[in-house]
């Protein structure tokens, strides 16, 4: 019995010692060498992954999306593994590709080949559930894998494409707002840790929520749509090289629409032409012609308010500036014209004579004050400053030539912004294309209207508005007249300089019309520019009717009714 008890005690002691040794080992593993082992495990099991936030949305001023991003996946194959392990026919069927093309890609001598990009979740699911591997392998083991990507989509197609811009294959902004606000739209990438279990299943242990970013533009899709529809029609009717239009709110400097035709569809990748990414409304400069006459008129009025009463003899349509330069008043032979009439009938001779009383330096100073010869500061890439030489570099006839828009180059944006100076009471506003930046729906930055400077006095503004109304009422801008609405505007038909002939071309013209409406309380300033129209080229018959159609639609959209119609209804 005693012997049995000794045995029991011995076994108990042995078991106790076993437990003790396990306890000691556990103590050593869990407490003393805890950090070492946890590091060892995390090295083998935990993976740090990077998650790129979805590219931000670009909205118009009414929060209508113009550019959004979608999560898609691209399907890749490792040819070495895939060659013998997959059923090519069923894979081709799932990818909606010809079997020959899939087979050709898989037989390439590369480490990895792209089979198809931009697959939607249900397409991926179809591939994952189809019997693609020949043996009892999973898809990854058989050499087929997926990579998450982002697909940039433009739901409105080509609407406002020059403003919105485009992204490249790597989702980096290449033009427009996509380029200017690339860093903001890309957002931050978040790092997160995943653990992988024995069966290769992934468990996310920590992940930060991603920010949703957005850029809100000042563009109004409805106005932009009307503008694009009308300039496309004008392009087809005139067979021009290019038609450009900008609509600006003169009170705030906000751009309501900015379009050029021909344009491109940002959703169609293979038809992209790199030259077309340049926004002609800010990146093309041209000699403005008669639309520039308001600068000389404003300078004259600022220096001598009584100039309004003066008369100018227009030499019956022909006037010699120097021995080899003679200027003409298109097809008209004018005699004596008032200050208002030289603008209404767009007399080059009248303005050449007016410029003599102004002087070169004053004309240059006011040209600069109106924003010519410098970038406007709009939040778009590729803006040109135009060309305005300092008066020291002007020739003997430069003052006369510049007064009617030659020997100077400007962008359409500079012209529309200078007319907004008259429309808003004399202030040069900074043109803006971005209204605000949003982060998770909350405004992170709001772009307020910026007044750059006062350019002209209220007296000059009133006189210029009257003169521009006269242009539309009885002058060259007759085709822009809207019944019941006071429209102020100016036509411009500029000869293009032919660098081969080294003189102004008699066949190539830029026809433009700039104006604002209603003149008593301007809601919009619009420029329509038709580059090299074929056949009829006078702005009065090429650009003014386009302006009229656009202005009519904008007024209707803004709920501004013709005064005469309201009056007649009230009489009823």
């Amino acid at each position: 019995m005693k012997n049995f008890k000794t045995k029991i005690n011995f076994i108990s002691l042995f078991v106790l010692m076993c437990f003790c040794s396990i306890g000691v080992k556990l103590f050593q593993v869990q407490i003393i060498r805890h950090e070492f082992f946890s590091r060892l495990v995390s090295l083998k099991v935990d993976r740090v992954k990077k998650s790129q936030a979805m590219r931000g949305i670009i909205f118009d001023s009414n929060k209508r999306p113009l550019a959004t991003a979608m999560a898609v996946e691209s399907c890749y194959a490792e040819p070495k593994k895939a060659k013998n392990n997959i059923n090519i026919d069923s894979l081709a069927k799932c990818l909606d590709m010809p079997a020959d093309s899939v087979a050709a890609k898989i037989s390439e001598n590369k480490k990895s080949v792209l089979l198809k990009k931009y697959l939607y979740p249900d397409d991926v699911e179809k591939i994952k559930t189809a019997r693609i591997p020949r043996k009892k392998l999973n898809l990854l083991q058989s050499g087929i894998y997926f990579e998450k990507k982002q697909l940039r989509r433009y739901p409105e197609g080509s609407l406002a494409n020059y403003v919105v811009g485009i992204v490249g294959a790597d989702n980096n902004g290449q033009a427009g707002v996509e380029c200017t606000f690339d860093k903001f739209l890309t957002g931050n990438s978040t790092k997160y840790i995943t653990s992988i279990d024995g069966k290769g299943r992934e468990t996310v242990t920590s992940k930060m929520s991603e920010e949703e970013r957005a850029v809100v533009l000042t563009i109004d899709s409805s106005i932009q749509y009307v503008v694009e529809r009308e300039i496309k029609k004008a392009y087809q009717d005139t067979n021009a090289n290019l038609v450009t239009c900008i609509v600006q709110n003169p009170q705030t400097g906000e751009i309501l629409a900015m379009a050029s035709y021909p344009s491109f569809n940002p959703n169609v990748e293979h038809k992209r032409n790199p030259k077309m990414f340049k926004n002609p409304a800010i990146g093309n400069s041209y000699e403005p012609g008669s639309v520039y006459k308001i600068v000389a008129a404003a300078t004259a009025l600022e220096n001598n308010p009584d100039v309004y009463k003066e008369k100018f003899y227009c030499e019956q349509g022909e006037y010699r500036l120097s021995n080899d330069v003679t200027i003409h008043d298109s097809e008209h032979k004018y005699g004596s014209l008032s200050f208002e009439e030289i603008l209404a009938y767009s007399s080059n001779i009248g303005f050449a004579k007016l410029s003599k009383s102004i002087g070169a330096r004053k004309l240059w100073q006011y040209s600069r004050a109106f924003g010519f010869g410098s970038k406007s500061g709009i939040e778009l890439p590729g803006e040109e400053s135009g060309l305005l030489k300092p008066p020291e570099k002007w020739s003997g006839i430069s003052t006369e030539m510049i007064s009617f828009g030659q020997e100077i180059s400007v962008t359409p944006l500079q012209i529309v912004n200078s007319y907004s100076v008259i429309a808003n009471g004399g202030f040069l506003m900074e043109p803006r294309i971005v209204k605000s930046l949003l982060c998770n729906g909350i405004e992170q930055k709001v772009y307020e209207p910026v007044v750059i400077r006062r350019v002209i006095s209220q007296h000059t503004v009133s006189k210029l508005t009257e003169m521009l109304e006269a242009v539309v009422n009885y002058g060259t801008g007759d085709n822009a007249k809207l019944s019941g609405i006071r429209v102020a505007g100016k036509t411009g038909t500029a000869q293009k300089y032919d660098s081969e002939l080294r003189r102004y071309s008699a066949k190539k013209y830029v026809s433009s019309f700039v104006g604002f409406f209603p003149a008593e309380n301007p809601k919009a300033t619009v420029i329509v520019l038709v580059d090299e129209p074929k056949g009829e080229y006078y702005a009065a018959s090429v650009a003014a009717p386009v302006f009229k159609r656009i202005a009519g639609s904008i007024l209707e959209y803004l709920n501004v009714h013709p005064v005469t119609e309201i009056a007649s209804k009230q009489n009823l």
Partner: protein
Amino acid sequence: MKNYRKSKSKFYILFAFSIIYIGSFFVWEKMQQKLLSQKINSIHARTAKVEAENQRIDMKILEITSLNNLEETGKKRFGLVAPDIANIVIIEDDLKK
């Protein structure tokens, strides 16, 4: 003395069982934690898939309701025409306001 020894061995056995129980509970709890995180993970994956599908449908809606598509549909299906400035009709209620 005999009773003391008996109770001492009982204590050891109880102690050993408690350690085994706590150990097993710890392992079971860890397993449950893993299973749960896998479940959460699969739900996350499903949510991501549904969200992606939702995005795709939203995109389709946006494309269908795009201004260009609406105008085309209006013209082709309903024979509508783009309004002109001459077509504006002033409604009496607007005048009263």
